[in-house]
């Protein structure tokens, strides 16, 4: 039934069968091999880049599933309250979904605007939750120290991730019929 509904909306359910394993692998990489590496003093959030790229191409429902399952792996490895990553990714993904349906869809600057907004939201949501949970106020002072390099890094890498996602999606979606 769900599959049929997806097909009616022009979204083949096979997208999830590809997106979810990729998201889980990216989340595992983030908590293992990529966890050792910092660029400009911050960690690279490949899962976030993948999720928002996927949302821009395939819509919110699949993006939320990616955020939920990928975020769960990040949460298990994190010292933050369980659910911090799922919540911050869900908020960022919902922002990306606005990018999918607005009048600028297809504009080159849209993905940069979306990734900038998503990075800001992920940081704000996670720092807010950490502060509520009683973590040190140093986090608020460090927000700028983390956000600026994260914005730079993720905006730089967004075209690469978006290109990869576009390539995958073009292979699973039937070509659009144009008149």
């Amino acid at each position, binding site marked *: 039934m769900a599959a049929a509904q997806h097909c009616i*909306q022009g979204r083949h359910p096979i997208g999830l069968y590809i997106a979810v394993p990729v998201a889980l*692998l990216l989340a*595992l*990489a*983030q*908590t*293992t*091999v*990529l*966890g*050792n*590496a*910092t660029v400009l*003093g*911050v*960690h690279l*959030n490949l899962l976030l880049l993948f999720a928002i790229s996927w949302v821009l191409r395939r*819509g*919110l*429902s699949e993006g*939320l599933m990616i955020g*939920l399952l990928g975020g*769960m*792996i*990040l949460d*298990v*490895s*994190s*010292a*933050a*309250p*369980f*659910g*911090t*990553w*799922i*919540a911050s990714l*869900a*908020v960022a993904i*919902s922002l990306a*979904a606005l990018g999918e*349906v607005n009048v600028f869809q297809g504009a080159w600057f849209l993905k940069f605007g979306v990734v900038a907004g998503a990075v800001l939201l992920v940081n704000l949501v*996670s*720092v807010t*939750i*950490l502060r509520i*949970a009683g*973590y*040190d106020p*140093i*986090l608020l002072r*460090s927000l700028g*120290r*983390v956000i600026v390099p*994260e914005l730079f890094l993720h905006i730089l890498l967004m075209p690469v991730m978006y290109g990869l996602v576009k390539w995958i999606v073009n292979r699973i979606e039937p070509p659009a019929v144009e008149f």
Partner: protein
Amino acid sequence: MRAGHRSATALVIVLAMMLVWLLLDGVGAVNPIRDTLTGIIAPLQLVFGRALSPVTDQLEALGRGAELQRENQELENQLAELRSQIILLAEAQLENEDLRRQLGFKSAVPNFQLIAAEVIGRDPSSYLHYLVIDRGSVDGIRLGMPVLTDAGLVGRISRVSQSSSQVMLLTDSQSAVGAYIQRSRATGVVQGNLGPDLVMRYILQDETVIIGDIVLTSGLGGAFPKRLVIGQVVDVRQNDVDAHQEAVITPAVDMSTLENVLVLLNYDPGGLLAEP
């Protein structure tokens, strides 16, 4: 339109669930679920990390070729110097033990019972400095136990599951360790600073701190045993109007490249931390 409405509803439901979930997490009600998930994901992290580590090691080595060569030369020089020091220290220790025996004192060298653990995961947040290791409560790990390497102190156990544990690194902003400077015996508190370096605070103004000084744990507070190496002073911040001075410390252990650690099993962290 209907799809958009359904998506918005789904988002509201997810966020509402997360709010309830976070509240439950605050009172520890979701710990069994978290432990179950950790039990599933920790082995996957172990396999994934091991499978990819040769590739990442090679990539890292390629990128740092010249730097590694220079570092290797420096390490060889240091090794030669340290070997000669070890011989002198061994002599001094023999003499020390002999004198203590004569005076009827117990050995000052603590009898550490250590268990080796492999680092299988890291906190993905830029705000938190934590590791996940492949040892848990079944291996005798308890909350608050000190974690170290042969180079020095790493941190302490902050959460324990059945087969894995979480380690709060010295560099985390929540970490605070009682410490003293080996040369001058000046005391202070070493805190994490969300960067690779540490800051030793609350050093009295009349104490002398010199770049290159070695910083050790003081044992005050009972969270760590005395005389574990923390790091080396690389900068001193002194302002005459302040009551205290600060020292910037480079940790003896490179936290970003840790692959294996040791957990000190036979140390009771002063009853400061509750059982998991």
